[in-house]
């Protein structure tokens, strides 16, 4: 869905670093290097980034604004 607030396993806050990670990786940066630079060292936290899928963006598209729906 959306990036979890914390690493499931250790509890480190990771959600704040997702934007940066996504941006850098989209630029073609090596994900491992980005994670190192963001200070994500433990493999439990790293897997949170490496395996996240932004599914919320896919379901968001199905949101219909109330203006378009109901008022007919």
């Amino acid at each position, binding site marked *: *869905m*959306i*990036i*979890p*607030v*914390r*690493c499931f396993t*250790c*509890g*480190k*806050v990771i*959600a*704040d670093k*997702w*934007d940066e990670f996504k941006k850098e990786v989209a630029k073609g940066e090596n994900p491992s290097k980005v994670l190192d630079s963001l*200070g994500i*060292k*433990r493999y439990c936290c790293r897997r949170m980034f490496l395996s996240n899928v932004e599914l*919320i*963006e896919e*379901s*968001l*598209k*199905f*949101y219909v*604004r*109330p*203006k378009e729906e109901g008022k007919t």
Partner: protein
Amino acid sequence: MDVKVLSNSDGQLKFVAKDADPTFMNAIRRIIMAEVAIPAIEKVYIAENTSVLYDDIIAHRLGLIPLKGGEILTLTEKCDCDKKGCPKCESILTLEVEAAEDNFLVYSGRMKAEGSVFPANNNIPIAEMNAGQKLTLEAHARLGLGKNHAKWQPVSACAVKYEPIIEIDSKKCDLCGACIEECPKKILKEKDNAIVVTSLWDCTLCKLCEEACPPAAIKISYDDRNSVLIVETTGSLTNDELVLAACDVMLQKCEELKSSIKSLPEAF
């Protein structure tokens, strides 16, 4: 007990305590994780939520946001409001957003602190919304203990590690360098015709060097009287504050024990 700080960087505090039993260090570790009170959002009143994330998910995400400024609150369990929540033990944060554009991220920084408690980190996305979606809520933060829910755990990683002992028998060693190659942490080096350890505390006790050494010149063991404690907070308290608070909790527990033993009848 001899304490020395090894490092205090990247949000991690590492310190060695020599002549401290590992079980004692573990007691501190466990108190840090489970018994130091920090604030976290406990109740969320959602007025409007038209985002795709359900109320449950949003409330859960809010709960995991580390908060600061809980020092003046009291633990709800110990508060005189009978666990109902009152201004003394609760602090309110509000959030009111309407997305103006598509793929709009609501960050924790958008939360308005009505009381003393505020998010320790302003860049945590709470939800992603499309234009027109709304999220209005009131969140009540309370102090709590890590043993009750992981959101009140003030640290992410917290670990105790024994002091490694690397013994190199220079008589047996033929300087083949196999151990240098083998060590994943790269802490062995050849210097002046001898194998030396560059950073002892990095040794993970993996014993690969031991296995790789044909003449069995290298021996790995540990000294459990000396151990290092690694603390990494989530942002509510700083590392130092946290360790001190943990010590306070421990002392308080000891005081309680002491006083209750004292109050026992003399016959004991």
